[in-house]
């Protein structure tokens, strides 16, 4: 027998070891340099000097630093106060914008690029194929196309162009000066580097806000609902005029007016028509990638102003409380811009724009809520070829279609998808079943110039009338601009370009025939017709996205399906009851825990108990509701049951709006959900056929039966989920604000933040908790302007910094910080000064 050769065995072992080590080395070099699936390049990430660890050194602001910005006319002094707010003291407005661009980029560069890319449809170039669908949707909507068109028309010598270019110079100066250690974490995770900032991105931002605030696909959804339940019922469930009237423009009634009407029974259309209507799902998704009906969203902005006659100190007060999708970093960035004798303005800026859309100066404070006017119409077009059209008919003649080829590319420039987008003179079209549908939308025409000029003039306004004059040219998205000044004036105007529709055509809430130009818009509303109010006799003005004008005052079509005015009703009730309002009361109102809808619905549940047959769950539910103080405070133990009961009631009442869709859908889905104001209207009619449950053909249910069933089911559901009534039912253990990072990474997000407020309160906290107050501000317009504010996040976009989310505890508790508003740079010193940054002119 041959004996084994120990030497050969040793050689074999060492060769195997070397091969293993070689494989390991190659693997480590690969994962060190290249992203592997979701894992970022580890070497570049973990490198203690150039990797993410280096961000520790960028977490705190240095006590002093200086940099150059090409194009500056002279030195700019920037003082960061103890809340990390930059106070920019510049010799010219353009220099102030350059400095702001630089600090925006230093603190939020990734966010800025991500926002621009989201509009341009180039996210996949940064994040890879997983964002391909988002890019295709963005390009189909045409936001960048519209922004570029309006930007190209910009006179380069105009103040707006100079502002945009100066701002871009500041951003690019920062990018040019970045060291590898400055690279924001997100770029490291994606294995990417920042791209130069293009001035057109400011126009993209304006378009993006248009998508967030002024997008509507109501005609498409409405057609689906009409096919399902008939025209009359649709008109009642999604009315042009809100049945609860508490308009922005005071109607002199000093109380909410209920215009309840009977909701007609559903009248289903033919199966063929319904199938055609459901095909519109494709158009809805292609135009905006919006989810199918998600019910009433607990979101909404509020603002109100109080005249000196109703305030304790005799000075006008203003509250700004815009609500948006919450994110980290926040959508806002606080800044104070000072240019001697020209500009002295403080407020929140949007990353990507040099102006202050919400804020105050030494004389005026201004803020905005979303108007929600209908500024988008849809047209069924007739094309020459159903699959590859080249022209469409208009007034009997064929017109060529504008064709846009859009290629979505990946990080290495590789094409991921190519789409052909067809445009009529109205806007982009989408193919929906057998139909081609185009959209006219003011946002695609809205000029960034008018927005910048409007905000530019607002920032420098001396009075409410001055501000409103400057902002009158603003084109969209439509906003309820509210202002108050030191002279004691208050005023509001819902401002944008509102289309005048032809009297013969569809009103704006239905699909129009695209083959006739007679159906096109015919002009724009004059400013004098906009909803507005200045120094009303009641001494206060409030807006909360409700229908702006009482239809009995002005019956013209302005929009439809207005949000339930619960918040407006509550603000007005609070302001009516308080004739000596203080800044602190304004702050408390912003997170007031009561909702006007609770009285209507909780009363209805309680009343349904009369003479009802015994049902243990229902009896338990009633006992809980009887104990309820009708608030959504953190320690409340009944609000969670009320919310569940309202959800059950909604589901049962609107069961006729459910359809079974594609085979992939395992259960029926609701095509659309009427809002809670319509549910309140239905409550007024106990025997209405809508109360009948379709799934129980042998029984005809009425209102009280459905109320009882809803409450019993809600009680059972809550017990099943949370156990018997007790601490587990506390509101703060069940409803949270969830603030996700822009990349939705949990480690960079702040989730499950307990909040006060529920459905219909001024600070709604419900649903998935991803919407909420994005900035809260109170301004007192006294001899010296005083202001308080906060937002959910922090000034820094660096998650390693304490300034990333340092304002969250304040925000969650409803408290506000005092905003420092120094006249001179020297006023910030000692404990109020965190950092000094000096910019000097640099070579271009």
């Amino acid at each position: 027998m041959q004996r084994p050769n120990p030497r050969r065995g040793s050689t074999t072992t060492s060769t195997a070891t070397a091969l293993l080590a070689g494989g390991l080395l190659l693997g480590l070099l690969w994962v060190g340099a290249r992203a592997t699936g979701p894992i970022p390049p580890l070497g570049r990430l973990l490198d203690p000097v150039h990797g993410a660890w280096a961000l520790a050194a960028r977490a705190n602001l240095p006590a002093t630093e200086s940099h150059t910005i090409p194009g500056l006319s002279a030195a700019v002094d920037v003082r960061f106060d103890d809340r990390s707010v930059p106070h920019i003291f510049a010799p010219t407005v353009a220099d102030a914008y350059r400095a702001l661009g630089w600090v925006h980029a230093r603190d939020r560069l990734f966010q800025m690029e991500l926002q621009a890319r989201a509009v341009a449809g180039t996210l996949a170039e940064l994040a890879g194929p997983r964002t391909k669908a988002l890019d295709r949707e963005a390009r189909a909507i045409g936001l960048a196309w519209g922004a570029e068109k309006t930007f190209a028309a910009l006179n380069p010598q105009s103040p707006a162009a100079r502002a945009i270019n100066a701002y871009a110079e500041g951003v690019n100066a920062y990018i040019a000066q970045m060291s590898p250690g400055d690279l924001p974490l997100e770029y490291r995770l994606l294995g990417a580097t920042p791209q130069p900032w293009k001035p057109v991105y400011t126009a993209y931002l304006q378009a993006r806000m248009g998508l967030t605030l002024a997008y509507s696909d109501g005609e498409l959804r409405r057609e689906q609902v009409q096919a399902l339940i008939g025209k009359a019922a649709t008109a009642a469930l999604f009315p042009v005029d809100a049945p609860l009237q508490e308009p922005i423009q005071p109607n002199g009634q000093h109380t909410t007016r209920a215009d309840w009407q009977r909701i007609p029974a559903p009248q289903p259309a033919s199966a063929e028509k319904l199938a055609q209507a459901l095909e519109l799902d494709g158009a809805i998704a292609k135009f905006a990638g919006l989810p199918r009906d998600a019910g009433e969203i607990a979101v909404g902005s509020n603002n109100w102003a109080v005249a000196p006659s109703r305030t304790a100190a005799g000075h006008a007060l203003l509250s700004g409380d815009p609500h948006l999708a919450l994110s980290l970093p926040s959508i806002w960035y606080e800044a104070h811009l000072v240019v001697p004798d020209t500009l002295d303005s403080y407020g929140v800026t949007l990353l990507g724009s040099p102006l202050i859309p919400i804020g105050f100066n030494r004389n005026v404070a201004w803020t905005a809520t979303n108007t929600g006017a209908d500024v988008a119409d849809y047209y069924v077009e007739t094309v020459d070829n159903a699959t590859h059209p080249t022209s469409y008919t208009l007034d009997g003649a064929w017109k060529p279609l504008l064709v846009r080829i859009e290629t979505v590319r990946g990080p290495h420039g590789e094409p991921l998808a190519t789409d052909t987008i067809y445009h009529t003179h109205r806007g982009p079209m989408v193919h929906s079943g057998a139909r081609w549908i185009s959209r006219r939308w003011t946002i695609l025409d809205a000029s960034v110039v008018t927005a910048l000029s409007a905000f530019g003039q607002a920032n420098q306004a001396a009075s409410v009338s001055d501000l409103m004059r400057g902002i009158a040219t603003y084109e969209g998205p439509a906003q309820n601009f509210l202002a108050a000044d030191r002279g004691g004036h208050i005023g509001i105007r819902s401002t944008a370009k509102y289309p005048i529709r032809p009297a013969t055509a569809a009103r704006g809430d239905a699909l129009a025939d695209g083959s006739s130009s007679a159906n096109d818009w015919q002009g724009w509303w004059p400013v004098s017709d906009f909803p507005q109010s200045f120094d009303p006799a009641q001494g206060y003005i409030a807006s909360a996205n409700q229908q702006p004008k009482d239809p009995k005052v002005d019956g013209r079509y302005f929009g439809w399906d207005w949000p339930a005015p619960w918040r407006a009703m509550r603000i007005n009730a609070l302001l009516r009851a308080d004739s000596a309002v203080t800044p602190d009361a304004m702050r408390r109102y912003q997170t007031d825990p009561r909702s006007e809808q609770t009285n209507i619905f909780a009363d209805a549940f309680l009343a349904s108990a009369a003479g009802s047959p015994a049902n243990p769950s229902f009896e338990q539910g009633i006992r809980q509701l009887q104990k309820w103080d009708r608030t959504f405070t953190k320690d409340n133990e009944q609000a969670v049951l009320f919310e569940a009961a309202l959800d059950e009631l909604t589901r049962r009442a609107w069961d006729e709006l459910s359809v079974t869709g594609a085979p992939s859908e395992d259960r029926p889905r609701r095509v659309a959900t009427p809002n809670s104001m319509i549910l309140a209207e239905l409550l007024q009619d106990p025997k209405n056929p809508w109360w009948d449950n379709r799934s129980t053909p042998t029984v005809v249910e009425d209102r009280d039966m459905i109320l009882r069933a809803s409450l019993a089911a809600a009680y059972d559901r809550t017990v099943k989920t949370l156990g018997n009534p007790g601490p587990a039912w506390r509101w703060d253990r069940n409803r949270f604000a969830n603030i996700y990072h822009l990349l939705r990474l949990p480690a960079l997000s702040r989730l499950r933040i307990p909040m006060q407020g529920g459905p219909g309160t001024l600070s709604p906290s419900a649903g998935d908790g991803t919407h909420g107050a994005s900035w809260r501000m109170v301004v007192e317009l006294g001899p010296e302007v005083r202001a308080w504010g906060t937002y959910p996040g922090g000034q820094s976009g660096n998650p390693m910094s304490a300034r990333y989310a340092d304002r969250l505890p304040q925000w969650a508790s409803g408290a506000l910080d005092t905003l420092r508003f120094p006249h001179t740079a020297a006023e910030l010193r000692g404990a109020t000064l965190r950092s000094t940054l000096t910019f000097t002119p640099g070579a271009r």
Partner: protein
Amino acid sequence: MRPMRFALLTVAMAAGTMAAGWWTVAAIAAGWSLLTRGERAHHISVATSAALSWALLLGVMSLRGPLARVSEVLGGIIPVGTLGIFAVTLLFPALLAGSASVVTSALFRRLPADLPR
């Protein structure tokens, strides 16, 4: 490996990382193994030296900012926890340098030790 040589290698790796980046630990480990061929291999010492060099750099970085917060964030993104991310950060250069050392030793084993170094 003698302490002085170990210290020299550690400093070299830290300097290399500072000057050119993370991959230099592999390059320096390979170079070191080439220079010390013919001697008893010290792959573990090389790996330890790499880990120590990054530990030193992290120590320096901790003087400039909140390293604990960074570890909290990074340890959440690469879900290994706050302490785990420190371990990963030190293990990465150790494996990189150790494997580079083994591979270099194997490749250049047959070269005479008295060739000009």
